[in-house]
């Protein structure tokens, strides 16, 4: 009897173990069947050739003719509607044209509209607990519609507008597709991947903000796309800079200066000092900090970066003339941006000598503005210690796509916290 019981228990255990994957498979296929008619491939078409220039995914949300996707999927069409048009392709191979209604450039979201009903709108829900299963849908590499199972690993703490870390394998072409919880509710929008099952989703709450705004104005289309982008980028930049200014900064010592280092959770600092050589006649310390954040505008343009660096040089072996030759070579700063002459003006710079931490500095502010995005500027700040024959200190700070006034305030605030400590 005891043996029989043991055998029965073992059989039950094996049956449960065998059934578990079958249930999961059933969940995934059920989800796919329920939602596939609400998911589409979004195509940007070159009007002249009639051929697709980029593809992504999209899904029905809020109303039966409203689709959500990523801004970066449709950015060519948004920035150049004269050259490109927008089309959809369903899982059954049906196609049609789409029109842009609204977008959120900061969170990489776009809302488009079809002339006919497209399917059942997906319902937006809260992100489940960390570790819960999530299911991403899309059309990877134009190979056909797929569903991918992955795990929710929570909202990233470092990024300012944190994306969801999705441990599943998103691929190009799935951008703009929906990610669902086990009940089939929308929790995120596929946006990026770093490979090796490290993928990112835009939380659905940002999509809800855009949809609520659209519901409030009866889904009226955006008039001036560039002004709309500028306003969003400026508002976002001001918000970030204001937050940084309000933060309590940690300090670090570079040479004989105490300077701010960690301005915000989103900013990470690295030591980038050169490896000392045996025959060096001077010492040099270099610290570089960056917010590692970029907002996609177009295939060649991203904004939103905040970078700063400190360079300390000192010597007790070099003559002032020889030391300054080396020091001067380091006094050159540029902005790491691919903005070209169609995007921005030339730089306008102002240089003068200022008093910082009771020492004289040669300080420069350079600004260039975006031609299409009104009020948006790239700012470059640099200041170099002068009057010390055996010491050099350079502080460089740069912003891309920011509000000039806010960045000036942050630059001033940072300089005001510099302290000289022997």
């Amino acid at each position, binding site marked *: 009897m005891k043996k029989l019981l043991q055998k029965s228990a073992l059989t039950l255990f094996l049956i449960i173990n065998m059934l578990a994957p079958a249930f999961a498979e059933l969940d995934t296929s059920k989800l796919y069947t329920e939602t596939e008619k609400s998911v589409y491939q979004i195509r940007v078409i070159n009007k002249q050739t009639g051929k697709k220039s980029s593809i992504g995914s999209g899904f029905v949300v809020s109303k039966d003719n409203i689709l959500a996707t990523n801004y970066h999927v449709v950015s060519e069409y948004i920035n150049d509607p004269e050259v490109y048009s927008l089309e959809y392709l369903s899982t059954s191979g049906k196609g049609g044209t789409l029109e842009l209604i609204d977008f959120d450039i900061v969170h990489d979201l776009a809302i488009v509209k079809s002339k006919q009903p497209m399917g059942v709108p997906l319902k937006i829900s809260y992100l489940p607990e960390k570790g819960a299963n999530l299911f991403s849908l899309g059309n990877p590499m134009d190979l056909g519609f797929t569903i991918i199972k992955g795990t929710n690993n929570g909202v990233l703490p470092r990024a300012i507008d944190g994306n969801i870390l999705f441990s599943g394998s998103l691929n190009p072409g799935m951008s703009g597709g929906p990610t669902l919880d086990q009940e089939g509710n929308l929790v995120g929008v596929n946006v990026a991947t770093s490979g090796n099952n490290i993928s990112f989703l835009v939380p659905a709450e940002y999509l809800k903000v855009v949809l609520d705004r659209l519901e409030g104005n009866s889904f009226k289309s955006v008039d001036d796309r560039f002004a709309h982008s500028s306003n969003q980028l400026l508002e976002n930049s001001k918000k970030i800079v204001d937050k940084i200014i309000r933060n309590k900064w940690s300090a670090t010592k570079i040479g004989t200066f105490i300077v701010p280092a960690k301005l915000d959770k989103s900013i990470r600092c690295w030591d980038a000092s050169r490896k000392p050589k045996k025959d060096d*006649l001077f010492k040099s310390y270099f610290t570089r900090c960056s917010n590692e954040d970029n907002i996609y505008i177009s295939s060649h343009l991203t904004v939103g970066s905040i970078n700063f660096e400190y360079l300390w040089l000192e010597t007790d072996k070099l003559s002032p003339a020889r*030391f300054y*030759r080396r020091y001067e070579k380091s*006094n050159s700063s540029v902005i790491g941006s691919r903005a070209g002459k169609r995007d921005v003006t030339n730089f306008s710079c102002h*240089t003068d000598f200022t008093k910082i931490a009771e020492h*004289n500095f*040669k300080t420069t502010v350079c600004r260039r503005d975006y031609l299409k995005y009104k009020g948006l500027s790239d700012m470059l700040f640099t200041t170099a210690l002068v009057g010390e024959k055996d010491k050099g200190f350079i502080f460089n700070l740069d912003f891309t796509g920011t509000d000039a006034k806010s960045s000036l305030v942050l630059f001033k605030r940072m300089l005001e916290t510099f302290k000289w400590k022997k």
Partner: protein
Amino acid sequence: MEKVILETIQRGVHSYHKIESFPVTMGRAFDNDIILQDVTISPHHLIIDKEDGNYLIKNLSTENGTTLEGKKLGSEPAMLDIPAHFKLNNLKARLLSTDMPVEDTYVQNCSGLFCFFSSPIWAALLFLATVAIFFIERFLDTPVAKEPLFYISNVLPSVWTLLGITVVISGITRISTHRWEIIPAISIASMVFLVPQLFEYLGHFASYLFTADSFGSWLQNIASFMIIPLLLALFIVKTIHTKWLPALGVAALVYSPFLAYQVINLVDDLNLKSGFSEIPGYSQTLLPSDIRLNTTISLDDYIKDADKETSSIIEDMLIEAKKKEAKS
């Protein structure tokens, strides 16, 4: 009997023949009165005769002919008015009167800058100063401890270049006066290196003094475009005793390969300044002496000034860009 002088100019060499009896024959054959060794000259090229006090020229050449005052001569004799210019093919000749005034004697005086350049002591000092500058520049640019051999191997190519330029410069005098003017050539070649370097130091100092790096680039342009050709012209004027204008022409010709390079650089620079540049142009010079006209101002004032100035310039740039867009 009135004597006349026949001048022929062959390969830059002037030959003078005193004519005491007529007719005079000129040509490549050895039975001529004046034998001219040039394959473009006919064996019997022309005859100059005197009839009733008038000088006559008769072309005998059927190959390349003779021109008188720019006009081609036929087989008929033509009248010569002294002084007369004529050409046997391309060989220049003049018939001159013996009482024709000659140019003033060039007095070799040792006053001014060139005397200084011609002194072997000063030439040696300038040469040594140039080599020293090569060493100093390399030394200043090397902020690590290095053996003397490192500096010697780095400086040697520059020294060879200096010597090469000396040979080229003195070659000018060798061609025209058959003398190697090595001492002034050493001085001038040294100055070709020293002056731009001096201007670079001055420009660097001025850039920091005025907080504007454009001073440095302008001084360097002056050194490249004016000072070096002027030094070469001075050398030509003083060693070959020519006038300033042809000397400047020769100097520009000798300097033209470098000048072309400088012009390309300048055009590139101006293009960059007038067109789009992704690099911010600001005063980056730093000087240990910290000598400057701008005084130190408070951070508040600086931020206000910077905001005001950059905003106003950017506004103008945006208006300009809009105008351009509207045009296109």
